[in-house]
């Protein structure tokens, strides 16, 4: 029993847990590649990335919201609303201005969420549930519950076609955004402050960080990325529809949590979200290539999600250890030389 506990407590095991996203990603790629021939071809990869692209853009904003310890259920509804604005206003304003208005609609929706959560002090789960119902109903009201098409299908082609034969616009956009957000979270003072707000808003406030401002900002940013997802999605299929994105929010939450961001706030990573998204994208494509029905896919996704949060729960008590890659390598190398010193090396 003691040996088991020591094994769970060892730096190597905690290191595996820390970088689980990367390990799961590699495992997914290896298993898919050995079971499904052709999945690692460039075209298949580019396609599966494009398919997850809409969810991914929503997940970018959601990562920040989750780090502050809040939740946003309204991403899917905002997505549909901005898409409807981008397609429906083409006749009055022209195509490019309409797309910009679609983005603005997303930002405005994020501001509404921010007001509900920060100014009115409503719990974010309930607040974004309310705004989700509201925005979704607004979509149905504006469109009479019918999907409608835009002016020029060729305009949308530019969005959905791979740029220079490599990746589509939304793939490049979400990867670039995730990298930028990662840099912001790890290098910028404001990014570090965000973690403080998520860990303990009151003490963050006491150390001179305007918690409410940060929370408000993350909701606006989440609205913006959901709006961008909606505009790109609607343009690429040249349709505005009130039912777009009905399952997007939940899938995006799953991707962010698989990526290691905690719902309780204070911990998370944008690169982790990227890993979570890649896992979901490759998993979905691999299962579809091998004709596995959609409900089996949802069982697999659910089980992975559940196992990960369980794992996270059982190792979350062991904080305060240096688990960066270099420190891990150092301790592994030291252990190899003096195996009996394992316990003393762990601080």
């Amino acid at each position, binding site marked *: 029993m003691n040996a088991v506990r020591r094994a769970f407590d060892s730096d190597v095991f905690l290191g595996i847990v820390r970088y689980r996203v990367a390990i799961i990603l590699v495992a997914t790629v290896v298993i898919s590649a050995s079971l499904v021939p052709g999945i690692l071809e460039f075209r298949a990869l580019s396609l599966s990335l494009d398919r997850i692209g809409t969810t991914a853009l929503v997940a970018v904003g959601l990562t920040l919201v989750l780090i502050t310890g809040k939740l946003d259920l309204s991403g899917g509804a905002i997505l549909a609303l901005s898409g409807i604005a981008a397609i429906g206003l083409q006749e009055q304003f022209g195509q490019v201005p309409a797309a910009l208005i679609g983005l603005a609609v997303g930002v405005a929706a994020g501001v509404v969420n921010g007001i509900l959560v920060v100014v009115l*002090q409503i719990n974010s789960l309930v607040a974004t*549930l309310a705004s989700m119902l509201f925005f*979704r109903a607004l979509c149905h009201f504006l469109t009479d519950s019918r999907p409608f098409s835009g002016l020029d299908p060729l305009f949308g082609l530019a969005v959905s076609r791979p740029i220079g034969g490599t990746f589509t616009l939304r793939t490049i956009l979400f990867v670039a955004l995730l990298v930028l957000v990662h840099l912001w979270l790890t290098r910028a003072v404001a990014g570090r402050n965000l973690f403080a707000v998520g860990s303990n808003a009151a003490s963050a406030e006491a150390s001179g960080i305007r918690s409410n401002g940060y929370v408000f900002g993350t909701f606006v940013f989440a609205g913006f990325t959901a709006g961008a997802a909606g505009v790109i999605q609607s343009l690429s299929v040249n349709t505005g529809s009130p039912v777009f994105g009905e399952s997007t929010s939940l899938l995006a939450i799953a991707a962010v949590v698989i990526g290691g961001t*905690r*719902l309780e706030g204070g911990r998370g990573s944008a690169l982790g979200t990227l890993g979570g998204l890649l896992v979901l994208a490759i998993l979905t494509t691999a299962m579809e290539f091998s004709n596995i029905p959609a*409900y089996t896919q949802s069982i697999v996704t659910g089980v992975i999600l559940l196992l990960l949060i369980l794992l996270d729960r059982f190792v979350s008590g062991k904080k305060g250890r240096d688990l960066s890659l270099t420190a891990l390598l150092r301790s592994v190398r030291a252990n190899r030389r003096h195996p009996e010193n394992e316990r003393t090396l762990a601080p």
Partner: protein
Amino acid sequence: MTINIETVSTDRVVKQGFLSRYGTTLAMPLGILMLLVVGAFLSDRFLTIGNLTNVLINMSIVGIIVVGMTFVFVSRGMADLSVPATVAVGGILVLMLDDVIGTWPAALVGVLIAAIAGVVNGLLIGYAGLNPVITTLASGTIVLGIAQAFVGGVIVYGQDPGAKEFLTGRLFGVVPVIVLIFLIVALLGHLALSRSVFGRWTYAVGSNPHATEASAVPVRLVKAGAFVMTATLAGFSGVLLGISLQAARPAIGAGYEFDAITAVVVGGVSLLGGSGSIPRAIGGLLFVQLLTNILVLQGVPSEPQGMVKGALIAGAVALDVYLRRRGGRE
């Protein structure tokens, strides 16, 4: 030894204004009364026995879930998002098994399997201490996937019109059976929450988990119990839904989780736990249902009604937060 207990003069207790004292208690009955008056003015079909009975029938299925969801809210369990899955399990199982083992045993199987899903939720949330939102989200996805795999993703049809007639019929030609079942469940739930030890534990766990744990209350059991109860009741209402429609598809329960949360929140039960009651949650449900009914009678299509529901939730919670601050309870 005598202990001299001095009577505390009332001046030391913060005196509250009438609004903050009775505002939260009286708001809901007044709101419902107001809706009745407004509805009667807007449409002469509104205040008829037939229409109001229809409102009651419509709220019965989701009302049974609301009873369980209230326990989750009061015990500070956030919310149960796996309700659509457990509703589907109940509905699908009862219709799949009704020609094999008979409708009522099949109903029992449906409720039991849903309860097992609830036990899993309870173990994960109560004992392992996972976040309820993401846990019920994941478990709901899994359970719904299994239910779909079970039937191959198609619609199941029932074989027992007799059971349907019983359920949609009326007792003594007046009281709809399904409303009666709902009222019994609501009454039992109310008694369990307000009169039983488990109910008192539920309030204690929701108000202060640490202090409650220190008082030797099985906090984990109480937290788990709320989720087991919600899943069981959701399975039960899935069974009722399946029998009364005689057809069930995997998406049969979609939206019920949000409807139940809406009702509980509009009823003024706080997500922070420790307060609220079944009658308040049911009052919230009745309020939403009456409002929906008025909108339908005014010819508003069902989808845009979500705008009113969304505004209602935000308004109700914002009002609650405001009243709490004025009452000085924060």
